[in-house]
């Protein structure tokens, strides 16, 4: 009759632990996002993305985080089904009691977040893993190095006719990009399509990264996209408002002395975090960023 043979409170404790990990993760994600606001042509933001994409500790955490999200969702759905099964015959007039706002909608706000996560992953995370193509950024010095290596080979007479053509095309491509697609600090070629990338660097060049700065800018100039994000952040706020207090209660820390403080903390967290996330798409949409 129960879907998992684990004490109800144990399931809650798991749910709370997974949720709490996500609560700690969110401010970090938000902090990274806010780097995009600095008026430096994306330099800070690209550095952060580079760090997040290459650091090994971050990579370990990425796996842990994905597992947490997955288990949190699976367990949340299992709990919701079990709870429905606990009342096979419903009320005709139901639930007029005063309750904690938000608590009734956890599975629904969670569901909205799930839809959002799918969209968000397809657009950004899949680009990182190479499942979909986006825009790319590469260091100018790396492009030049790759070019020079090939030019060297040419001088030594190791290149065939076809390769020479490619080299020529590469040269042209680099020249034409240098005009427009270079970062403010001159260190990167930015906003490259897959074709441009291959034209400039050759087919087997690997040293590029997704240009999340320009991808975000492009996405957030689309009204529909921004609206979807903002709706998701509202759902997130409601989810968090109940979630924060809930973790304390579940872990038995909700003694009367702290109840007020915890409630205030939950409200602050549930406003600040979604607002912090919402600033980025809003700023991009509303200013000529």
């Amino acid at each position, binding site marked *: 009759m129960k879907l998992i043979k684990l004490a*109800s409170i144990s399931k809650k404790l798991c749910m709370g632990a997974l949720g709490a990990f996500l609560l700690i993760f969110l401010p970090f994600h938000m902090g990274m996002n806010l780097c995009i606001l600095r008026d430096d042509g994306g330099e800070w933001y690209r550095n952060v993305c580079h760090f997040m994409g290459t650091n090994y500790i971050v990579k370990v955490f990425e796996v842990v985080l994905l597992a947490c999200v997955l288990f949190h969702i699976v367990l949340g759905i299992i709990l919701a089904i079990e709870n429905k099964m606990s009342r096979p015959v419903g009320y005709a007039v139901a639930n007029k009691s005063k309750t904690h706002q938000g608590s009734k909608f956890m599975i629904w706000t969670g569901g909205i977040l799930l839809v959002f996560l799918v969209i968000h992953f397809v657009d950004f995370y899949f680009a990182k893993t190479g499942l979909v193509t986006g825009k790319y950024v590469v260091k100018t010095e790396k492009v030049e190095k790759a070019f020079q290596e090939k030019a060297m080979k040419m001088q030594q007479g190791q290149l065939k006719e076809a390769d020479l053509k490619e080299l020529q095309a590469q040269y042209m491509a680099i020249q034409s990009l240098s005009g427009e697609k270079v970062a403010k600090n001159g260190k990167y070629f930015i906003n490259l399509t897959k074709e441009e990338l291959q034209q400039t660097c050759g087919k087997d060049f690997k040293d590029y990264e997704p240009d999340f700065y320009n991808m975000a800018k492009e996405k957030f100039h689309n009204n529909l996209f921004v609206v979807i994000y903002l709706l998701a952040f509202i759902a997130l706020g409601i989810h968090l408002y109940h979630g924060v207090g809930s973790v304390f209660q579940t872990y038995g820390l909700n003694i009367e002395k702290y109840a007020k403080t915890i409630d205030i903390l939950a409200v602050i967290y549930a406003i600040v975090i979604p607002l912090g996330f919402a600033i980025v798409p809003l700023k991009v949409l509303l200013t000529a960023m």
Partner: protein
Amino acid sequence: MDFTLKIWRQANAKAKGKFETYKITGISPDCSFLEMLDILNEQLINDNIAHPVVFDNDCREGICGMCGLYINGRPHGPDDGVTTCQLHMRKFHDGETITIEPWRAKAFPVIKDLVVDRSAFDKIIQEGGYISATTGGVPDANAIPIPKPKADEAMDAASCIGCGACVAACKNASAMLFVGAKVSQFALLPQGQPEAKRRVVRMIKKMDELGFGNCTNTYACEAECPKSIKKTNIARMNREFICSKTSYTDK
């Protein structure tokens, strides 16, 4: 006052129930809810309309916890901190339609009309809602020192009357407030310590087996409890559970 009553009628545990509508007129605002149902039943019998509506009740003074009725979407009706027997018709307005349903939970099957089987609570109590007592002479009162605030808190938890309103109110039909109160009343006192670690785990295991739902910290239970049992008792039970799971070795 006049009312339209929509009442759940179900001949027995197996029968398929349905709502019947009855009109009732000339009810005094000072009439209690159960007295109003008495008047209805008198009319149903005298005018040969139907079998009387069966509902649980006993003390009619808010201490036995029998009179569980789900009234207009709330256990024990629209008043706060009272049982159905303490609810008065002045809390409704004249001409109102009142929907009366039995507690709904897998663990509380309907026996007849508005009466449900709450023996699930007794089974939870049997798992640990007791303390071991020494034999021999009667001990002196106050032989064991207990700080007043602790004693008060234990007393507050012990005021639970086992009515089941917490389960009825909860969207998950969870019994956490009841079990939380029963665990707390012992956990707070020295007399409850010998069995404390075993008690909490066993009572929760039983609660789960009986088909009560998982708590989602919705707190409808606290809002509807006629004895104002606080949700901090649930937090205390969770604490006791963690503590027991991490330090209790005896099976």
